[in-house]
């Protein structure tokens, strides 16, 4: 629904990492942009404005997820752009960057435009496609980066198929320098991961499951950091899951290399012991890690090494999970659980509220060079209002995605996006998708 008249989000606590603003403010939205942010009551000169009450709630920039799988085109039974974009706004995300591992892969303007058209029809979150690094993501031939960028791609990635050829990676980084766009890299040396389906550790030896050693991720992070240093290109490390990986990125940042990184919520909240019962809902890539790695991720979050939280939202149908562990698909849903799980980490004191907002909004925007992720006056009105005390259960009926593969289903959550605005349009209202074209009214 469009806010056809000015709207004031009033009474909430504004938290905005980009401007450093944190406190009680009213936010005036006009013509799809943030028109003013003032102390409570100062916006009384707009008596005609509609009001959204946000008392006791957090008013933050619309969250941005740099890593989601929307499955369309090609696997529409798992997810569509529409269901994914709707799940996104319900979870507080106003922008999602979708990986190119569709069928066909997003290695042409046609696919990019198709995804953007489907996103426009859905009218929920902004969908920002990520183009492929190589044709068909096969690591053999560079994708047409300029064509993809002009069509609307915001970054490039071969997603779950890491670029094994360092020479190709080098040229990709060099080419993308001209576009100023980052390469988003799933870091895995396949000759080391060897088809491993859980973290290599005493536990994998006990369970008899093939192990994926953390070093398979670390050596590729090290390689891409060196390539970024050499070329001057921009590397974004996907879902870093090892303490050593965080340390490598920390050092690279200190060296002034253009590297950013994201962490997935499941790598912080779940550990490798979850797979003890061979439950395929805990099969992730990279695999869940032991405590030492999780502590390393939290250290990276605290000291600023980690730039973004990205869910790696990976919808999969039930049948692809109801098989032997080693044969099951990898990944879990993330769009509707990221924000509440982080609110939970906040209330436990594991992470500060301000840092959480930075990781969900401004951090991801900076990583991909997006203009969103802030509540600065004049910016587009992508706004999420979070009710941090809202108690709810992530019941199957709450899942907006077409798939229901999440170990968090049934979990009691605290915190939820109550209101979401995308470019001034009120898309989530009182925790539910706004429907129709109703006027904003009190």
């Amino acid at each position: 629904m469009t806010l056809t008249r000015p709207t004031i989000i009033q009474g909430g606590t504004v938290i905005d990492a980009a401007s450093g603003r944190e406190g009680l403010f009213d936010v005036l939205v006009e013509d799809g942009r943030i028109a003013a942010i003032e102390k409570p009551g100062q916006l009384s000169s707009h008596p005609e404005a509609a009001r959204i009450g946000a008392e006791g709630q957090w008013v933050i920039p619309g969250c941005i997820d740099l890593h989601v799988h929307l499955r369309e085109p090609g696997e529409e039974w798992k997810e569509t752009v529409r269901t994914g974009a709707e799940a996104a706004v319900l979870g507080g995300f106003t922008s999602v960057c979708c990986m190119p591992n569709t069928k066909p892969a997003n290695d042409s303007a046609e696919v990019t435009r198709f995804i953007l058209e489907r996103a426009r029809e859905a009218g929920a979150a902004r969908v920002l496609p990520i183009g492929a690094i190589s044709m068909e993501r096969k690591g053999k031939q560079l994708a047409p980066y300029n064509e993809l960028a002009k069509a609307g791609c915001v970054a490039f990635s071969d997603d779950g198929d890491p670029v094994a050829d360092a020479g190709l990676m080098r040229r990709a980084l060099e080419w993308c320098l001209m576009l100023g766009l980052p390469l988003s890299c799933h870091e895995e040396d396949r000759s080391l991961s060897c088809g491993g389906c859980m973290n290599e550790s005493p536990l994998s030896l006990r369970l008899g499951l093939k192990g994926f050693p953390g070093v398979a991720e670390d050596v590729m992070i090290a390689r891409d950091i060196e390539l970024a240093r050499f070329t001057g290109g921009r590397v974004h490390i996907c879902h870093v899951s090892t303490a050593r990986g965080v340390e490598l990125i920390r050092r690279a940042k200190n060296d002034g290399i253009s590297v950013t990184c994201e962490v997935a919520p499941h790598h912080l909240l779940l550990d490798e012991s979850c797979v003890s019962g061979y439950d395929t809902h805990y099969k992730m890539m990279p695999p869940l890690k032991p405590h030492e790695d999780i502590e390393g991720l939290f250290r990276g979050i605290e000291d600023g090494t980690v730039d973004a939280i990205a869910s790696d939202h990976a919808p999969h149908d039930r049948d692809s999970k109801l098989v032997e562990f080693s044969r099951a698909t990898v990944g879990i849903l993330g769009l509707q659980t990221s924000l509440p799980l982080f609110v939970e980490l906040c209330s436990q004191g594991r992470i500060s509220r301000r840092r959480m907002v930075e990781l969900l909004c401004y951090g991801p925007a900076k990583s991909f060079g997006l203009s969103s992720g802030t509540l600065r006056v004049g910016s587009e009105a992508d706004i999420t209002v979070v009710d941090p005390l809202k108690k709810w259960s992530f019941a199957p009926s709450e899942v907006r995605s077409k798939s229901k593969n999440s170990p968090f289903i049934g979990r009691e959550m605290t915190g939820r996006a109550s209101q979401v605005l995308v470019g001034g349009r009120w898309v989530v209202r009182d925790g539910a998708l706004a429907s129709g074209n109703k006027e904003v009214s009190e």
Partner: protein
Amino acid sequence: MVDHLLGIEGLSKNEIHRYLESAQSFVEVSERDIKKVPTLRGKTIVNIFFEPSTRTLASFDIAGKRLSADTINVSAGASSVKKGETLLDTVRTLESMNPDVLVIRHSESGAPHFVAQHLSRASVVNAGDGAHEHPTQALLDLLTLRQHFAESGRDIEGIKIGFVGDVRHSRVARSNIWGHLALGNRVRLIGPTTLVPRDLATVFRSDRVEVAHSLQEGLDGLDVVVCLRMQLERQDEHFIPNLDEYSKEYCVSERVLARCCPQSVVLHPGPMNRGTEVTGDVADGPRSLIRRQVNNGVAVRMAVLYLLARTAEPHEVFEP
């Protein structure tokens, strides 16, 4: 609540002895002229093997038949699995025939656990899953050792046992180690660092497990040596340079046993690669219990099937 035998991990000393005592009483049945008891008459046992096997399948089949159960053997090669059916659909189809026990072998670790979670009525017996566990093999190894030590007036509890070779990939070793730890024994894992990783001992959360990378040091003072099968594929996966290099360092020969642990007995779960992990003079010599292991296979599987499938009323005769 349906009982399963998915692994040795987690079994108590008493539970293990219960299986062994029951098995010992079935040894006698197999020595009779008429090798059959009516214990499981009217029960149905499905042996479904997704991985080729000769001895384990034959021994489960004979065990079921000697207990008078109806047994059906399904091998994955001939079943609908090859037509793309999922494991779950295959076992649900079999369950619709109301078996009392489903014996499953599968190349993927955890497959029997997955099946057990999704079946409501049948007991599941793990006949070997990937690199995870092979509980009936461990029980027959334990029975063999129990008999051996009893004959020389000793107890199986308190011995020192070593496993030589590819411990990393061995489900037989995994199950045996859990069993020996439950019985209070000391365990040594012997092999190159690629197959016996340095942190392997920590898997078992016990200070009675230790790792040795030299055969001579590893064998020192052992009561029992278990030789594990070395597979040629390990060469292509870079776990060993080649079989020749491996056997020069780790083949268990009479010479090295006589020097390091002269009193020891030797087990091998089979099938054996003579000259690779064990020499012929050991396999066929006086310290070898390998033939006895094979003989005990049927009795152990009878005990497992009996304890899982018997009807509610207790058969005191086989109770410990």
